């Protein structure tokens, strides 16, 4: 019996552990964020890549799985690489479909962070949770070496790279956990009380029945 109880308790504790793990994966607020990145595996570590003078790579979000979708409100991190190595102080601009833009500079590891703003405000009756919005990221660095523009050499202009991606409205914009939990609690409380009252109503007070066989 004790072993049974232990096994069930262990299994019941797993959701809490899993939830704690999920919580651990959430991005931290800006003031608590680590400035040094976690050690990278040799496969993903920056390495010289002569074929890519300047490129932008979106970093995977914590806990990102297949069919991942960026949503408004998410923090998105881009790494700017020159010939495969991170570039510090590159100017990175994010421009949304509606024209909102924000500039930032890359840090020592070539990272630029943005929070995707909510950029979709239709009348509520026309709200579409699958509305896909694009954004464009432009990274710009001073040119370290000559390039070619229209078959002529160019040494003055900056190097630019662009990357486009898309995002969806955040589930927080159209769904409510509090309502869901409220309904479950209400049903559980109402159901539990109903069963209790039903059972109490059916309890019959004790009555002693006496037989007097002689009468």
């Amino acid at each position, binding site marked *: 019996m004790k072993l049974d109880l232990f096994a069930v308790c262990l299994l019941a504790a797993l959701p809490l552990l899993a939830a704690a793990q999920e919580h651990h994966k959430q991005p931290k607020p800006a003031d608590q964020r680590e400035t040094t990145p976690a050690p990278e595996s040799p496969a993903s570590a920056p390495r010289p890549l002569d074929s890519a003078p300047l490129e932008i790579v979106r970093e995977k979000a914590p806990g990102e799985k297949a069919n991942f979708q960026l949503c408004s409100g998410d923090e998105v991190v881009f790494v700017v690489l020159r010939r495969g190595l991170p570039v510090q102080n590159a100017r990175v601009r994010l421009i949304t479909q509606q024209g909102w833009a924000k500039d930032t500079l890359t840090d020592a590891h070539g990272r630029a962070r943005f929070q995707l703003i909510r950029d979709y405000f239709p009348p509520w009756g026309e709200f579409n949770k699958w509305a896909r919005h694009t954004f464009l990221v432009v990274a710009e660095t001073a040119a370290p070496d000559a390039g070619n523009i229209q078959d002529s050499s160019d040494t003055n202009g900056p190097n630019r790279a662009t990357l486009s991606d898309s995002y969806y409205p955040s589930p927080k914009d159209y*769904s*409510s956990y509090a309502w869901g939990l409220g309904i479950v609690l*209400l049903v559980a409380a109402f159901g539990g009380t109903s069963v209790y009252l039903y059972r109490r109503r059916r309890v019959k007070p004790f009555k002693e029945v006496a037989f007097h066989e002689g009468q």
Partner: protein
Amino acid sequence: MKANRPALAALRAAVNGVDLNRFRFWVQLASFAFFLYGGYAAVNLGSHLPLFACVYNRVGTAGAGAGVCYLMPLQLQLARPWNTLFTGASLFILTGLGIFMLWFLALNKAWCGFVCPLGTIQDWLTALRRFVRIRYSVYTQSQFDWLKKIKYLLLALAVLIPLGIGNGYITRELRAPICQICPGRVLLPLFSGDYSHWNIDFTSTTTVVMTALGVLITGLFLVGAFVKKRFYCFFCPMSAFLFLLSKPALLRLKKDGSKCTRCGDCYRVCDMQIKAIADDVVTADIMADDCTLCLKCVAACPETGALKVKYAGLTIFEATETGFIKRCQKEHCRANASR
């Protein structure tokens, strides 16, 4: 060969005297862990399983535990225009049904009694109720007869609504309607730390109604399963679907009416309140539509050979007097130990 016979008889006696409740508890626990967390070990048994291992439990490499309930693919596959439904383009629906049948034939409705994670949660809630010493509820026979029809209605909706969607009569927001209102969608992802299915979606009237129904039924499930054994199994459309297909299944529950004394022990232990298991002394194939093949009735039967479990015609577990006494003694010892 002769030397093997005593060994075989000893094995049969050991199996027939097994503490079934304890055995079932461990099988259920192992199945629960396997189907909910098997994805972490890259196990993927596909999406045609006859049990409520939920597609929304996004775990591991497969992204959905060790396997997925067939109702979701069935509903999605049926959402096709009628003119393509009976053509070669819809052959994959038959293929899916075939794979589902192969899984199902192996265990019949023991998928419900031994493997289904939602059934296991209900049994744990029952154990909790017993632990806090609250008595269980039962339905009256008329309530029972009325309620058992609901699962067939839900099964019909699981087929008809997708067909309506495929032909544009019903909004696509109602796709996989049974999954939207299933408590498995809300409860099973909890075990991997995903609380997102407790949300009410306010994007349209349909989504508000369906998500609210989903959490409302979850609330009823929790209360119901606490006071009534296997509460949700009365309404489970998968249970109805399995019963409709159960004729060729390999695992069978058999009754020999001539050995039955109608003592009613089997009825008293039945979580599903199936009266026919005690009353019917004529039918040999005794499995009713609500039966979960938990085999408690066989374990509780004191008449040797009155109830039998057969697999492909071979008796694998049967009621025996000695087995019954052995289980009673164990139960008695356990009750004394817990006092």
